[in-house]
């Protein structure tokens, strides 16, 4: 049932992979060309097509609403009790758009350039350029929906700056931008639910993909209230199920965010690209003990005004206020004078790890650095600081019982986002025809490191604008499908396998809880596949993961029954998939013997300790094919015509 081949490291390399959908020609014209070249479905015929959308975050909510507005019959799923609770809601800082309202030199081309560079030259140029083009439409769309972005006194939209860029292009709604954008999408979706165009299944989780004759035709899902396992068929399936950061157990992801939809799709034939590209966010609240269930992010926007420092001396345990200026090391400002505290996330995280490894970390266990607002309060006044960051300060105080107006915040990096995901072409279609992946679930736009405020942009670009255009082409080319029902052998097989997996989880009746395994795999991944990776560590992890998996299937204890509301069963089933995905992440990290963006290999660094890319060998996206044993690697070569790859410099 689970791949248990200890020779996982002996992967093979298969045929190279190419994106056949991006048109040729000048990059600024490609999206228009693709849209013109794409076939359309007559409005009267759209209602005959059913599209399944899994997930209701920014990407899924936007896609479901837009496809329904176009006239398609949408059947949508979320595991929460309401589509409004998807984890996009927790995004704090903002959303990028090349509006250039500040007249500070921004443009579509600059956003494109910053994103390709910020991703350390591991993203596809065509996709990123399209993202930058669409960014401006997103802001228009959201304002029309009533998203209450921050405004200036004149009534126009305000912006701020974010890491890795030197313009102010980030639109925001205090520290709750994700919430406001998600509610916009949720409300648009609600309108379509009321109109009968979207059939919404809340508290229902996708557990498998149904592939018939090589084409995605539906999903197997479990009603989380009754426990009933059902099938749903469609003409196309869209996965908008988010990232897989919860492999690490502790992350800033919501507790229920999981990898099951993408992993099950991978097992059914969708290639998984760049699984080792995970983002460690530099500004999270440090953990307080073993009871910790998740980590909380403090928005990157805090780095606009907060200054990051540690004591110059090792083991200096004096309270922050007692450490004089001359004995503080504002290390980001020192090492990267031109970007200072606003270097990209991967760089800020690694720098924090380095100073803590040197024994200069602060707080319990020395796993923290200061983010200090004393200068900002002196410069702007406490009220102005409160207006900009008040809700974040409150949140910090609630969690730590420390007042950040008086003592500096303590922060430490934590797993936050996954750039890797299902491989998709320019149309956002996976290697399984009829299966699309959007938002964080795909791998397409952020390369090896995502810039701040770009996740919201990508989720909404995919959901509102890209997928609704490209899926037309697929549906127009495959207008008449034979109906599929539960008697079809491939549907029956998917249904049977899902039932057997759940039954097996319930029958082991061992002596360890699901959480204990999740914690174990998470700690292993953080240790060996976290902020810094080495060949030795990754090999160790690759040896250990199958052992943990074996132990899981011998010792797991899941109480209760399958035919009821059973949160332990939900959790255990997600861990089954983490225990497989973790292995692929480590293999990907091992094979990519270069450093790039969030993927830092100890063996590949510059004299100054920065990530050293090896373009001659690794300028490709790694798309992995599932085999049941050692996977097959398919390389998609990356071609840079507009942004010349250089060693990233933020100094």
């Amino acid at each position, binding site marked *: 049932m689970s791949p248990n081949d200890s020779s996982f490291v002996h992967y093979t390399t298969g045929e190279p992979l190419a994106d056949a959908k991006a048109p040729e020609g000048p990059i600024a014209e490609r999206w228009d060309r693709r849209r013109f070249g794409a076939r359309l479905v007559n409005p009267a015929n759209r209602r005959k097509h059913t599209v399944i959308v899994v997930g209701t975050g920014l990407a899924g909510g936007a896609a479901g609403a837009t496809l329904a507005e176009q006239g398609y019959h949408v059947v949508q799923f979320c595991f929460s*009790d309401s589509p409004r609770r998807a984890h996009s809601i927790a995004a704090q800082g903002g959303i990028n758009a090349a509006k250039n309202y500040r007249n500070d030199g921004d443009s579509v081309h600059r956003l494109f350039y910053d994103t390709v560079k910020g991703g350390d030259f591991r993203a596809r140029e065509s996709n990123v350029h399209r993202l930058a083009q669409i960014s401006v439409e997103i*802001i228009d*769309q959201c304002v029309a929906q009533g998203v209450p972005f921050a405004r200036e006194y004149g009534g*126009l939209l305000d912006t701020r700056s974010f890491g890795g860029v030197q313009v102010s292009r980030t639109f925001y709604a205090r520290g709750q931008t994700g919430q406001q954008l998600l509610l916009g999408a*949720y*409300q648009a979706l*609600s309108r379509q639910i009321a109109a009968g165009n979207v059939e919404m299944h809340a508290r229902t989780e996708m557990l498998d993909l149904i592939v018939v004759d090589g084409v995605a035709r539906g999903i197997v899902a479990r009603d989380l*209230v009754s426990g009933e396992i059902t099938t749903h068929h469609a003409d196309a399936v869209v996965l908008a199920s988010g990232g897989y950061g919860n492999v690490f157990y502790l992350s800033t992801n919501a507790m*229920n965010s999981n990898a099951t939809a993408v992993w099950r799709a991978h097992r059914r034939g969708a290639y998984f690209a760049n699984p080792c590209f995970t983002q460690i966010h530099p500004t999270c609240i440090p953990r307080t003990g073993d009871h910790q269930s998740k980590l909380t992010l403090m928005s990157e926007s805090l780095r606009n005004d907060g200054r990051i420092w540690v004591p110059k001396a090792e083991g200096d345990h004096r309270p922050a206020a007692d450490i004089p200026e001359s004995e503080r090391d504002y290390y980001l400002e020192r090492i990267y004078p031109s970007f200072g505290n606003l270097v990209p996330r991967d760089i800020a995280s690694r720098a924090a790890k380095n100073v803590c490894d040197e024994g200069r970390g602060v707080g319990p266990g020395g796993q923290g650095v200061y983010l200090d607002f004393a200068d900002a309060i002196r410069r702007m006044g406490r009220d102005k600081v409160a207006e900009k960051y008040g809700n974040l300060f409150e949140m910090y105080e609630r969690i730590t019982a420390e007042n950040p107006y008086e003592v500096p915040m303590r922060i430490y990096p934590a797993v936050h986002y996954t750039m890797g995901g299902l491989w998709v072409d320019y149309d956002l279609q996976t290697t399984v025809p009829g299966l699309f992946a959007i938002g964080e679930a795909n791998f397409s736009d952020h390369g090896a490191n995502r810039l701040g405020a770009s996740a919201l942009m990508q989720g909404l670009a995919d959901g509102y604008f890209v997928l609704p255009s490209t899926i037309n082409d697929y549906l127009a080319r495959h207008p008449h499908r034979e109906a599929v029902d539960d008697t079809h052998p491939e549907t029956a097989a998917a249904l049977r396998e899902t039932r057997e997996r759940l039954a097996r989880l319930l029958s082991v009746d061992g002596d360890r809880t699901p959480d204990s395994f999740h914690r174990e795999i998470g700690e292993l991944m953080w240790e060996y596949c976290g902020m810094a990776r080495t060949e030795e560590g990754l090999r160790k992890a690759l040896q250990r993961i199958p052992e943990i998996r074996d132990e899981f299937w011998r010792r797991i204890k899941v109480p209760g029954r399958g035919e009821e*509301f059973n949160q332990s069963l939900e959790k255990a089933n997600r861990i089954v998939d983490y225990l497989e995905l973790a292995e692929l992440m480590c293999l990907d990290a091992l094979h990519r013997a270069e450093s790039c963006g969030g993927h830092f290999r100890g063996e590949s660094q510059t004299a100054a300790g920065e990530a050293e890319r090896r373009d001659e060998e690794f300028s490709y996206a790694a798309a992995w094919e599932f085999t049941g044993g050692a996977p097959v690697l398919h390389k998609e070569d990356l071609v840079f015509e507009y942004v010349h790859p250089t060693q990233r410099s933020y100094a």
Partner: protein
Amino acid sequence: MKLTLRVWRQQSPDAPGAMASYAVDGISKDMSFLEMLDTLNEDLILRGEDPVAFDHDCREGICGACSLVINGDAHGPERTTTCQLHMRSFADGDTIDVEPWRAAAFPVVKDLVVDRGSFDRIIQAGGYITAPTGAAPEAHATAVPKHDADHAFEHAECIGCGACVAACPNGSAMLFTSAKINHLNVLPQGSPERETRVLDMVATMDEEGFGGCTLAGECATACPKGIALPSITAMNKEWLRALRKGLR
């Protein structure tokens, strides 16, 4: 810390429920309330008992999933969500009562989990601005006075948790409904549907079985996002205004 928990256990919507008592030990004051419940559940699983079902997700106070009545207060003694409540708000040896939201319009699913689908249906009745994708004018085409934008934002902060309903002696959803109406009706983009929005949302609220408002004010006291009572007054004015315009 050592605590005694008295938790509402109910197997299914139609099954009778009862409070059950559990002792928990080794609780750190830095734990969140939900992490304390995690600890209890780990023990229950190992003892072969059914763990306590409760809704939770982001654990950052923004998704609105968590929903516990703690010692009689929605989200407990601090003005925040249950996930952001920490055990330092309690004392060693305390006995803590944990119950689900209790309201006719929020039927219990299991233990501490309730069905808040009625909230979604209120939004579906009109809690949106009709702006199909692609139809939007340039964002700066309409300036929105900062005061109005801030007013909209402060009401848009509602996380849809339902604490207002749980706290209300009448089980009324007036604060939830008024938050969305204040958010959208103050914006120029929301004005074409201003009247139908308030009439349809209020009608749906009533159909869903929420109680009437007697201005007890408990909702605003319980709201973790600080949505204030005048929100309801503003909604009532909008409703009367729409009624006078003869749109119903």
